[in-house]
């Protein structure tokens, strides 16, 4: 394991920003630290970098406990949430700063900075100041600056947060490619689930200062281990009484059920349905066009659920009565979560 956090605790005043954090990261992996705002992501990153000291626990990098090594000696690259570029230095000087501090050879510095500017598509901007750059360019300068001193670990705090949606998409894939190419172990923070799923090799999910789950994007999405993770991904609808939908096993002590849009089949009354007998009737309350599909808010069994229909399917209207069939849902008890399949699916497969 390349980076390891063992029983890390950190409090600000009486607020527990990190609550017994344990995880480890393999060399060369790109890790996404995902969680809602205030869940302690930045705190974890800052402790790894040495900008913050844990109250207890060990941080191990490359087999060495680094708790007492100052930030300046850890050899970690850090891209700040707001980039923190040196605003009184040109782009060139920003990128060269770390190498100048290391008293590297002039020629080497020049070559390295030019190489990085080329890599990050910043050629020709060397003489500009950060205030004369676009958001995306600033992001790339911050990235190049962090990479210049050849760090063996790169930490990125919401690297795309300040960038508009379109450029963000491009930068995401660019960053992933870049990091893969350089083979540098990286941890990036985000509160955007799509970003984490798309970019990360592995996702660590934080909530209220704790780690909820760690795993591959597919795994955390499909097999949530806690009720928080189950309700974090997708566009979950939370319902109190799942037994009001047909054909689900009655598990005792269940508090809530979570339904994702892809768990729901919405059929018009005149459409052929396989599971008509297990469907519930609902009324469409609102319709939103989402580009690739249509998002529906449906009132059914006295609650609301979000569902989707493809653009190729027949049109539906607000106020229309439709049949709702739920393929599966997550049920939660405390922090535990379980996936329940609709029994008619199971029975169906038995018949065949």
């Amino acid at each position, binding site marked *: 394991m390349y980076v390891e956090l063992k029983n890390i605790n950190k409090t600000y005043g009486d607020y527990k920003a990190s609550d017994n954090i344990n995880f480890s990261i393999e060399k060369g992996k790109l890790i996404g630290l995902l969680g809602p705002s205030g869940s302690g992501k930045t705190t974890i990153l800052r402790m790894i970098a040495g900008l913050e000291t844990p109250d207890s626990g060990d941080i191990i990098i490359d087999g060495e406990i680094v708790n007492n090594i100052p930030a300046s000696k850890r*050899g970690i690259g850090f891209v700040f949430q707001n980039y923190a570029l040196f605003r009184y230095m040109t782009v060139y000087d920003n990128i060269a700063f770390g190498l100048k501090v290391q008293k590297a050879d002039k020629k080497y510095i020049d070559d390295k900075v030019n190489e990085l500017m080329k890599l990050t598509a910043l050629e020709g901007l060397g003489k500009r100041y950060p205030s004369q750059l676009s958001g995306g360019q600033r992001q790339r300068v911050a990235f190049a600056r962090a990479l210049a001193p050849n760090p063996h670990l790169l930490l990125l705090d919401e690297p795309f947060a300040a960038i508009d949606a379109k450029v963000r998409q491009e930068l995401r894939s660019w960053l992933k490619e870049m990091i893969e190419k350089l083979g540098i172990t990286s941890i990036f923070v985000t509160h955007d689930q799509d970003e984490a799923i798309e970019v990360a090799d592995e996702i660590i999910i934080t909530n209220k200062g704790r780690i909820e789950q760690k795993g591959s994007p597919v795994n955390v999405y499909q097999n949530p281990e806690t009720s928080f993770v189950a309700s974090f991904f997708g566009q979950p609808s939370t319902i109190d009484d799942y037994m009001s939908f047909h054909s689900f096993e009655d598990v005792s002590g269940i508090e809530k059920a979570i339904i994702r849009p892809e768990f729901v089949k919405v059929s018009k009354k005149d459409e052929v349905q396989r599971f008509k007998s297990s469907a519930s009737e609902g009324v469409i309350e609102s319709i939103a066009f989402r580009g690739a599909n249509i998002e529906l808010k449906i009132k059914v069994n006295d609650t609301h659920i979000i569902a989707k229909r493809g653009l190729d399917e027949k049109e539906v209207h607000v106020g229309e009565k439709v049949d709702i069939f739920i393929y599966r849902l997550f049920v939660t008890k405390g922090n535990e979560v379980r996936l329940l399949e609709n029994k008619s699916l199971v029975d169906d497969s038995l018949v065949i």
Partner: protein
Amino acid sequence: MDGKRKESSLVKWLLIDISALFLGVMLLLPLGIVIWQSFKQGIAVYMKAVTDKYTVSAVLLTIEATVTAVIVNTVFGLFAAWCITKFKFKGKKLISTLIDIPVTVSPVIAGLMFMLLYGKQSALYPYLQKMHISVVFAVPGIIIATVFVTFPFISRELIPVLETHGTDEEEAAALMGAGGFTIFRKVTFPHIKWALLYGIVLCTARAMGEFGAVSILSGHLRGKTNTLPLHIEILFNEFQYVPAFAVSSILVAMAVMILVLRSVIEAVARR
């Protein structure tokens, strides 16, 4: 609509006129009189007053006290502003309140404080005598008083700038392996440069004009412990009006120079 606009432009000019009148009566008129009075009896008398041996020594002492105060307060101001904005510690509020005391306490009281601390009635006095240090009625007293009275000026200019600046850039530099001094020189200093210069200008202006605290500690020894403001007061009290105004004009000239410097700094910094 049109009437409204006329009315507002009337108000505008009225306000501008009142301000101009006020400035004229309160500021330009007195300053003009100082200059006029000092030249009333001709250039020769003016030159004689200005080149008088006691005047020259007063100018030199004023410069000495001002330069010392600026140097001491620049160093202190930088440290204080740095500590207050970059570290979290207990008693931070208290320190930042204490820094303001010299501007809130009357300079006369400051003078009395040092009098009690270093004067004959003080418990420190025997030790100071043993070490042959005299503070009261001597140059060190004047310098101490000037430093005290002007010490908030530089830190007060720096603190807001450092506060809005935050610590991100410094952290970024530290992560790249830079040491404290490099960080200050390369990252923090460019940011506070203009505020620092501005603070120095204010500090200089205030130090040059300091009267109250210095007056108490000086003892008015001509040629020894008289600063310019004190010298002017003595001349005035001796009914030597022309020399008093002539010497005042030196102080006015120095103040105007500082003002010009200030405007230049402001203009450059805004760019």
